[in-house]
């Protein structure tokens, strides 16, 4: 059952209806049953790995929390308590990260090692449990937070299981934190009609981004990346991939955040108009926010962050982005993609005096609209360049695409070539309109205007009209039906 399937919608609305009717104190039980059923429908065997991850982190949390409690009361046991805490903590981290490495990276590491040794790597084929990259990070963040003492260990196993396996998040996030989710399981809010409407609108928006835009762009992108030719058409292909991956993942995030809201759960936001960022650092504050903040809180800051000198700060940035790249996939292309983003930031810091010099020399107003546009465009193009490595199968293929995209052949826009890559004129026009809508909505978001809230304040007939038109656009113009791979969310493979 994938989130773009009709079955998911039926499942979601059935759970929402029950959730609406049930007394609040029992709701977490319903959500737990729904979550486990949802995951089992996707990956029965994966349930074992999920169970191990949940039970080990749950037990470790309790052990550490128990020791901390003793420490607080019996000072003489303090050192012994810390040591046992550290041991439990380390073992649990090793076990969970180890599982992630084995399932996801064993083949990659073995292949890389054998390649360095000049030998042919043995074939290692292990199917990673669905969502392991996401729920492992959730479990680890819980464990680290307990270790840090920022949260108390959850004693109710059911609630903890629900936290890790919450069905709106387990496939591809957002990677929410325990203090946000578990407190909502403990004190569920009353689901009112406004929440339902808001959640429903967000789901609709997500389906629009995913089915109407991302999957339509994917047709063009697959054709270009499958057979790149020198010229502007390849550059357009790279641009469309940049937009595709945003619409794909942000669309998914909107669907699941909206779904959670229908159930009365407020999930952390994952995207905030990332392509309107004026710098790479800002981009990462707006793109996949739940992962970026996780990496910052649990890797960058423990490494020392920016507290141990400039050189160490740059090194930490590169480490974090290398890890981020590797987290996305077991391939050097992802590592290069991550490092490129790290490098952008390091170079950005190093070049700051030069930039300041030029700004001063030409008396550039940093707050001017033109300056902001230039920064946004440059940031977008840098991000676009990095996405080529993310999309290509090999580093060589990525360089091939980049090289070919630099060939300037603007006549492809007018000689019909644009429409020979899987999308005819009507589809291209639809795509263009869709992208403009996304751009406008993002621009409104940046300025603090939430379109959903505006719509919800309109009279009933207009609200209904907007929603019905949106439903029809998604149903009629969405890419679904025969031949459609409902599991094709890009981030689901990570």
């Amino acid at each position, binding site marked *: 059952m994938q989130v773009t399937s009709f079955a998911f919608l039926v499942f979601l609305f059935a759970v929402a209806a029950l959730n609406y009717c049930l007394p609040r104190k029992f709701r977490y039980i319903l959500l737990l049953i729904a979550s486990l059923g949802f995951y089992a429908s996707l990956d029965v065997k994966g349930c074992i790995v999920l169970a191990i991850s949940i039970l080990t982190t749950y037990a470790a949390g309790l052990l550490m929390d128990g020791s901390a409690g003793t420490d607080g009361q019996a000072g003489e046991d303090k050192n012994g308590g810390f040591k046992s805490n550290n041991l439990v903590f380390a073992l649990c981290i090793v076990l969970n990260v180890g599982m992630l490495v084995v399932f996801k990276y064993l083949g990659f590491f073995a292949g890389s090692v054998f390649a360095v040794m000049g030998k042919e790597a043995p074939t290692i084929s292990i199917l990673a449990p669905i969502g392991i990259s996401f729920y492992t990070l959730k479990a680890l963040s819980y464990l680290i937070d307990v270790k840090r003492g920022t949260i108390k260990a959850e004693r109710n196993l059911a609630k903890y299981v629900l936290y890790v396996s919450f069905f709106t998040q387990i496939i591809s996030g957002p990677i929410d934190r325990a203090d946000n989710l578990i407190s909502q399981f403990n004190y569920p809010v009353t689901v009112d*009609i406004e929440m*339902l409407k808001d959640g429903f609108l967000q789901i609709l928006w997500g389906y629009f981004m995913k089915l109407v835009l991302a999957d339509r762009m994917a047709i063009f992108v697959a054709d270009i990346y499958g057979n790149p030719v020198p010229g502007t058409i390849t550059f357009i292909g790279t641009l469309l991939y940049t937009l595709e991956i945003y619409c794909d993942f942000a669309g998914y995030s909107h669907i699941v955040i909206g779904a959670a809201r229908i159930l009365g759960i407020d999930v952390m936001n994952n995207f905030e108009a990332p392509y309107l960022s004026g710098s790479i650092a800002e981009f990462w504050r707006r793109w996949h926010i739940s992962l970026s903040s996780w990496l910052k809180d649990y890797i960058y800051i423990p490494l020392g962050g920016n507290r141990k000198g400039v050189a160490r700060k740059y090194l930490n940035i590169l480490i974090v982005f290398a890890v981020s790249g590797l987290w996305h996939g077991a391939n050097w292309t992802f590592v290069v993609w991550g490092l490129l983003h790290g490098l952008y930031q390091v170079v950005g810091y190093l070049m700051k005096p030069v930039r300041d010099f030029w700004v001063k020399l030409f008396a550039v107003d940093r707050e001017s609209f033109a300056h902001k546009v230039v920064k946004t465009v440059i940031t977008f193009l840098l991000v676009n360049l990095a996405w080529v490595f993310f999309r290509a199968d090999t580093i060589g293929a990525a360089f091939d695409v980049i090289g070919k995209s630099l060939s300037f052949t603007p006549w492809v826009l007018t000689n019909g070539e644009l429409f020979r890559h899987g999308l*005819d004129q*009507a*589809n291209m026009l*639809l795509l263009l309109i869709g992208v403009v809508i996304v751009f406008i909505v993002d621009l409104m978001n940046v300025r603090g205007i939430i379109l959903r809230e505006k719509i919800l304040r309109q009279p009933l007939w207009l609200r*209904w009209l907007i*929603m*019905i038109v949106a*439903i*029809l656009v998604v*149903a*009629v*113009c*969405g*890419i*679904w*039906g*025969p031949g459609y791979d409902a599991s094709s969310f890009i981030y689901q493979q990570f």
Partner: protein
Amino acid sequence: MKKRIINLIKIALFAAVVLACIVVAATVVRRKESNDKYADFFTQAEKGNIDVLFMGSSHMINGVNPASLYKDYGITSYNMGGHGSVMQATYWELIEALDYCSPKWVVVDAYMLEKNYQYLDVMNENTPQEDIDTSIDQLHLNMDCWPLNRLKLAAISDLIQDKEIRKEFLFDFIVYHDRWNELTKEDYQVLSGQNASNKLLGGELRYEVELKPSTSPDPAEGEQLSEHTVGQEYLMKIIDECQRRGIGVLVTYLPFCPTTEDKIAANSAGVVAGMYDVPYINMLGLGIIDVYTDLNDTGHLNALGAKKVTDYLGNWLVATGDLEDHRGQAGYEYYDECAARYAEDMRNFSGSVNNLYSQLELLNFGDVGSVVYFNQGSGSFADASVKELVAQITGTDKIKILSDGPYIMINDAGSGNVYEASGEEALSGVATAMGTMVYQPVEQRFRFLYAQENEEVNYLYDDDHIWYDIQVITYDKNSGEVLSHKYYRSYGSKYRED
């Protein structure tokens, strides 16, 4: 509590409006071929007008023309054939149809009787996916028009194994929603109840001429299929069902270029028919058609072949079927209209078609008068198909024995007289609807054809078309008004108008 109830009512109302909008959208984007083909079936079935149902595959669709059958024999029928329909698909098509009408006869063609698989989305082990996709696509043409009910559910469950593909037949919006970028005016007109109709009461005519019909060795006499196939099983079910309902059944095997296996299947069809004591006409060996003129391709009849087969079945049904001639009767106006429209279309098409073979094929119908002229040195004298098509109009072998022209044929369809001349031969005093015609060859690029009543007009000479070696003139068979004048140049067996 009251607020909660109001909210629930609002949600239910919203869901209902959304559902209604989706239904409307699904109606607009639905592929219309199935509705178009069967639109007249539903209206005529409702009136109880249909006496004969023709069932089968594309062989039946292209082989029997209900409009022609009514025009010439007064028999009211509907062609329910489906492209690519194997026997089980034909069976379910019949069951669906019998839910709406009670014909006196069902004529079922047994082509593909040898197919021995149940599910169209599985077929045989080595069937290419492309063939399976085509088969599923063709089944939509048969099935989309039927409403979603238990019968359709049973049919789809019996024909399709994959549950996901079944859903596509039960809720075809799944398949057709992406037609949004190819919608035409007709797609929207369906909302106002304006359905395009097939015009030929389910039949379809093709107009090409197969120039290289294939032949295959005959099997041993009476040889039958080596196993009891799914196709045979469903032919039995069809006969069973008809007999249970008191409907007469005629099993046919319509003509085309059969393989040896087809001939064996045709033998087996006869055996099945014999088991149930129902009549069987194996047209493969009856010489009803001329494979050099009457096939659109090796597998399908063209319009001329369809005319011959329709006439054969018309005569058989008149002689055997105990069917009433409904021509001109009250309540059958639509059939009269279809027959008239068919005749008018054929008349118009005889003059407008842009292909010499197709034009000669259509001239065989005699809906218009015609003059066909081949100049001296024309490549058409080396073309057996062209000569055969002309010979079928004249009913003589005169053109067939010629190796060079000039040659002229005047078919005065109104009087039924045909005139020919070749070489130095001239024609004079030829009474036609155009007038009393005179034909006189003079030299290679000049000849006379004029009406004595108006000697100023020489129909066969035009400075602009001096290098064209073939001319075809059509005229109204009653008034003599010239309807078209086409010039062709021969390039081997290719004929071009430019």
